[in-house]
């Protein structure tokens, strides 16, 4: 059923991106998913997702609640592994290497594909220790000076340095919600990941903090590939270059954000974007 719709979408959609017959040059594709299905017990939550994520671009995943966009995001760095009764099939590749290859260490994948969560979740440690946690466990730095540098760069990139440079030893849980989320972004950046997955990073934040994070995503695009799940369509329009619309466990269509928002190829996308459901 999905395939028919997908074919329909491809003929109807003017979007330049057609995953199965990649028109974009291979070098441009950072991660790609093919026929990704996820089962929770007997329940199929994702019905075969095909999508390419291009290097240094922001891909937004939108769709109504429960459509599987967060589940899909978590497939990209195998965060679903720890969920009881969850099975993933199909293939996800990172630079052409299968992420689900049993010979591969999941820890390495997660170091390359970082993640920022819906609710800010700083560790109950100091700001400094929060940021240097990743570099420490992966042994990325050789001495204290290098570690200090990593912490400073990461905090600067996350736009938090000026606010916290005088209190790096203060607990990370004492920051405001928006600052905590930027701390979590800094923590993710500190490992130098290639891809950053963001699961509704602004849903727990106020508008000003949200604006901060959105600016930050715009900055980060230069160095990282970013996949962001969001409920906020204005946000998707503001920060992403391409958008994928999920509905009931299907990927309905993928395309340039502008096209999706102005001239969607599928009726369901049109309905969702104009607010008829969701």
């Amino acid at each position, binding site marked *: 059923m999905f395939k028919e719709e997908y074919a329909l979408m491809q003929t109807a959609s003017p979007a330049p991106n057609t995953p199965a017959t990649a028109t974009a040059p291979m070098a441009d594709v950072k991660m790609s998913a093919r026929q990704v299905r996820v089962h929770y017990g007997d329940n199929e939550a994702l019905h075969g997702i095909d999508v390419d994520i291009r290097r240094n671009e922001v891909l937004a995943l939108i769709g109504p609640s429960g459509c599987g966009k967060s589940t899909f995001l978590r497939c990209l760095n195998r965060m679903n592994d720890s969920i009881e009764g969850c099975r993933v099939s199909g293939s996800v590749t990172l630079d052409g290497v299968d992420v689900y290859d049993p010979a591969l260490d999941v820890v*390495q994948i997660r170091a390359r594909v970082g993640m920022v969560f819906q609710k800010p979740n700083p560790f109950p440690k100091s700001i400094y220790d929060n940021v240097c946690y990743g570099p420490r466990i992966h042994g990325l730095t050789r001495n204290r000076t290098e570690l200090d540098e990593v912490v400073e760069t990461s905090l600067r990139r996350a736009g938090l340095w000026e606010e916290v440079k005088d209190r790096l030893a203060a607990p990370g849980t004492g920051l405001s919600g928006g600052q905590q989320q930027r701390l979590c972004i800094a923590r993710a950046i500190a490992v130098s990941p290639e891809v950053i997955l963001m699961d509704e990073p602004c849903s727990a934040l106020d508008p000003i903090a949200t604006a901060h994070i959105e600016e930050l995503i715009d900055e980060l695009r230069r160095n990282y590939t970013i996949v962001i799940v969001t409920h906020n369509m204005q946000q998707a329009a503001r920060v992403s270059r391409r958008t994928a619309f999920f509905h009931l466990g299907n990927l309905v269509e993928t395309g340039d954000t502008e096209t999706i928002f102005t001239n969607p190829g599928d009726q369901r996308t049109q309905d969702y974007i104009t607010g008829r459901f969701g």
Partner: protein
Amino acid sequence: MSFSLTLGVLLLLSAAGYWVGRSRAANLVARGSGRLHSLPSYHGFYVALWAGIPAFVLLLAWGVAGDRIVEALVLAGLPDAQTATLTNSERALLLAQIRNEAAGIGFGTPEPFVAAAAERLVELRSFSAWIVSAALIAGALAALAWALRRLAPDLRTRNGVERTLRLAMALCSALAILTTLGIVLSLIFEALRFFARYSPLDFLFGLQWSPQTAIREDQVGSSGAFGALPVVWGTLFISLIAMLVAVPVGLMSAVYLAEYATPRVRSWVKPVLEILAGIPTVVYGFFAILTIAPLVREAGVTLGLSVAANSALAAGLVMGLMLIPFVSSLSDDVINAVPQSLRDGAAGLGATRSETVRQVVLPAALPGIVGAVLLALSRAIGETMIVVMAAGLAANLTVNPFEAVTTVTVQIVSNLTGDTEFDSAKTLSAFALGLLLFCVTLCLNVIALGIVKRYREIYD
């Protein structure tokens, strides 16, 4: 009429009040005198409470004070010649004699004035019981009628009933607090009697404990020594051994259960661990004497050490076993309370399971774990049965775990069992030890609860 019969009648009246009140309220609505402020059942409870509670409280008061009043009347009715010269204790003795006579369990033939008083006591008792019961039931009926008359659609019975319930709950919690207070006071008074005979400083810092006091003047060791330090040390030493067993094992099993075990394993292991917590400590005592102590002895002999039959090690080991489920169950709760988002955060950075546990989960749970350990420690210090059975009686100030030591609880038990006279320092010393024990465990509990509370403030 007897106390219980009166109580039964009052309960019946109260129940009747409920039904009458409820139907009266329902009638009020049916007659169309407006909407009720409260549901009919609240009106019912309102009448029932008015009918039941005041009479019940008075009945309780009579149950406590009634006998005294009657007995005072009987004593006052005795001929002056018999009572004028009596001291207080003689008066109490006389009263007991009259009471026994009235109950028909007196010795021999009583003096005529005692027999007369006993007869009078019996008469007064049954008479007063009738009067009081009748008065109470009449009062309850009056209150019932009064409450019924007050029922009106806009009477806020709902609020009234809730106020009464709130009061009842406050009384229940006050009962717990008052009991604690009573226990502490009784400890303090007896301990003060001890300290009147033995200096508190010598008690707290003395190095020798030998509570045997002489019965005759010429006996050897006629004055006991009550330096509590060796006893306190014994308690701490055994507790330390117990914690050395319970904390690592309990903590590891908690981490395993909370972080690694599959739900299937968890659903088996956790109940089994909790069975360990349900074993009576006296059974642990058997285990210590019959199994562990001989094992420790043999192990010591193989190593060429001399081991006492009641070694501190054996008692400590078994107490440690007893505390494992305590530590693991509390720590398991604390570890489970660490938000999943922290684990996800660490996993998202590429941390392995054990790195996540060691560097994120355990530090986050640490205050709670410390609280759990302190609670376990205060249980170890107060634990009695295992040490009574497995630890020694001799107060040794030693750090050799193969020697016998004694504990505060053991000394309390041994000084208070058997025929004891309440005016000897030996018996009274038990209360001083009890007070000491109470203070130590109280401090530990306060500290533990404080830490646990501070921990909760972080995540809620």
